[in-house]
């Protein structure tokens, strides 16, 4: 390809200890552990704090609604707020996000309405938001497949000379899939403006990281593809934001893709149908709860005198308001039109679908499904 860029040396292995800017006690880190990244300014950190608090409240609310049977399934991101929000906040509104099923709070951060986000999880339709309006692809369920879409889209943008970056999330388990390899390699060879954020939350359903890879860190994989890799404390939103921001800026300037591994932990079950006590200990969960990403930033902001009681109250109120709105939309039954099943399969009319639509219409007219609508839930 003629869209060549200067070669970035990627021979250096990512740091063995995750890079961090704030330690668990909320103290600013200095020296080598920062990897040369600077702590974002207080206003940025306050914005990130607010987003995390609101997102967690949302996540807790949705989990509760799932227990009430309002959603068919919900993969919680409780504990992963720093990874999700720190990286997404580094994007501009024009950039694209390619999320997975886990990244619902990232969608919230993109400004998508709860009702639209949750349509798929409550089973109304596979995807409920306007992807182009929000520059956010539908959440991908088949693992790692969306990473290739991110590479393709960002490559297309680059061919068009549009300064747009695509960021995609992957889980630690997903890095074992073939599409992850293909996406890393295509991105590196084509030098696409793509940022891969691996949320290493330690488990792929029940399978721990050591059964997924023998690599010392998942960020190490970047070296083999010829792109920079960063091993980051995924519960430190300052670090996640700073590293992603640098990767996004470099991608936008033609510097190619970056792999970022955020080391974090999934506090909740894989989804509501999972039983995590079968594969991890309460002690382990407690250990990670004490490394909570929100508390860490809060300690820092309080010690800096940046987070006042008034602000806290205001943020808590905003979070409650969103939770209330979420409850409200989720307790209102959506009107579903079964005939719409046939409307979005092809752009052009197909006689077979026209016939099948008429057949269903006749059944409906005859009352075949009277009282059945939504009963599957």
């Amino acid at each position, binding site marked *: 390809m003629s869209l060549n860029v200067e070669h970035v040396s990627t021979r250096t292995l990512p740091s063995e200890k995750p890079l961090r800017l704030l330690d668990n006690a909320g103290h600013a880190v200095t020296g080598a552990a920062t990897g040369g990244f600077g702590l974002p300014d207080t206003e940025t950190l306050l914005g990130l704090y607010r987003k995390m608090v609101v997102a967690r409240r949302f996540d807790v609310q949705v989990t509760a609604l799932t227990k009430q049977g309002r959603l068919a399934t919900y993969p919680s991101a409780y504990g992963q707020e720093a990874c999700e929000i720190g990286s997404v906040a580094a994007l501009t509104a024009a950039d694209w996000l390619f999320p997975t099923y886990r990244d619902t709070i990232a969608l919230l951060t993109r400004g998508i309405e709860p009702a639209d986000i949750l349509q798929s999880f409550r089973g109304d339709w596979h995807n409920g938001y306007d992807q182009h309006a929000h520059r956010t692809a539908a959440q991908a369920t088949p693992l790692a497949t969306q990473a290739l879409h991110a590479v393709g889209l960002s490559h297309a943008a680059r061919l068009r000379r549009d300064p747009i970056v695509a960021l995609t999330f992957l889980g630690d388990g997903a890095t074992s899939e073939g599409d992850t390899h293909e996406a890393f390699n295509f991105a590196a060879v084509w030098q696409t403006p793509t940022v891969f954020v691996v949320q290493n939350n330690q488990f792929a359903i029940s399978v721990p990281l050591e059964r997924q890879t023998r690599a010392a860190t998942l960020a190490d994989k970047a070296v083999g593809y010829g792109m920079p890799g960063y091993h980051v404390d995924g519960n430190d939103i300052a670090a996640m934001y700073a590293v992603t921001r640098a990767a996004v800026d470099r991608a936008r300037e033609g510097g190619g893709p970056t792999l970022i591994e955020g080391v974090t932990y999934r506090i909740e079950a894989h989804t509501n149908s999972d039983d995590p006590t079968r594969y991890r200990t309460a002690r382990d969960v407690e250990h990670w709860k004490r490394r909570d990403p929100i508390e860490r930033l809060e300690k820092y902001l309080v010690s800096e005198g940046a987070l006042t009681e008034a602000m806290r109250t205001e943020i808590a109120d905003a979070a409650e308001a969103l939770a209330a709105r979420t409850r409200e939309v989720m307790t209102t039954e959506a009107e579903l039109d079964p005939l719409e099943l046939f409307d979005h*399969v092809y*752009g052009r009319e197909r006689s077979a679908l026209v016939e099948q639509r008429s057949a269903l219409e006749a059944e409906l007219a005859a009352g075949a499904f009277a009282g059945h609508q939504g009963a599957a839930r």
Partner: protein
Amino acid sequence: MTATVTSNAPAEASAPTQLTMAGALNAALRDAMAADDRVVVYGEDVGPLGGVFRVTEGLQAEFGDERIWDSPLAESGIVGTAVGMAMYGMRPVVEMQFDAFSYPAFEQMVSHVAKMRNRTKGRVTLPMVVRIPCAGAIGGVEHHSDSSESYWASTPGLTVVMPSNPADAYSMLREAIESDDPVVFMEPKSRYWSKAPLALPVTTAPMDRAEVVREGTDVTLIGYGPTVRTALEAADAAADEGLSIEVVDLRSLSPFDDATVGASVRKTSRAAVIHEAAQFGGYGAEVAARVTERNFHHLAAPVLRIAGFDIPFPSPKLEEYHLPTPDRVLAALDTWEWDA
């Protein structure tokens, strides 16, 4: 997004020249790329080499490597990145080098390419074409001769077409590239070198239409891609024995043109379908079932399938035993009770 269409005007019609199907496909790609700068072409060896079947010959020299380029060797990657490119408003035309090497991309094809419009309620459409050289009779080694059409055809959301001659190859590829929905464009390898006099650009029937390529009154033979020739040869041989065979070239496997096929079958009252792929659960089963369901009372005999054996595609020296021949077609027709 600043996609610009450089020209929609049809190219000047040229004087008829002998063109192979590969040449017609090459011309279709060239004309599509010239007409619309959103069209990009990539895959394995499609650049300087021009593709292993030379279908993309000369295109990189003409359009540059931002319009057509060699991708890394990875089929899921090729199809998956095309999804993203199409989301951004490009019209990627990607090549799977051989039929059986499209299988690594199966998940992208069925989970994303086929479903994107539906998942998103029509908000995201994928105007992309996946070209798949398919089928046997070229002496290919293992994995170079599969007929994978029924996998794609039974996937809702995909449009699956297969031309059998140079004129259709040109016209159908142009139409596939212009389609706002993804198209699996299957190219029967054994027909790549078949020739016809053509004045380009040529527009044949719409690609969702089947065509009666030979008129007859006694039997309808339904073929597609490589087996249209088989059907025509069988029809010629049968004519010597006084049997009048009509041949329908399906052209489109999904959607299926019930109207054209049905009209022919009601005229002849007997039908058989021919394909190279294995018979069991294959595309012919769908054809036989559809034809029977819709025309049972017009049929004088069961719909027959003349297909490859239910075996993995054989090695080159054995493939002739596997592929449906005109003789096998005629022998199959002999199993009907003709006096009944």
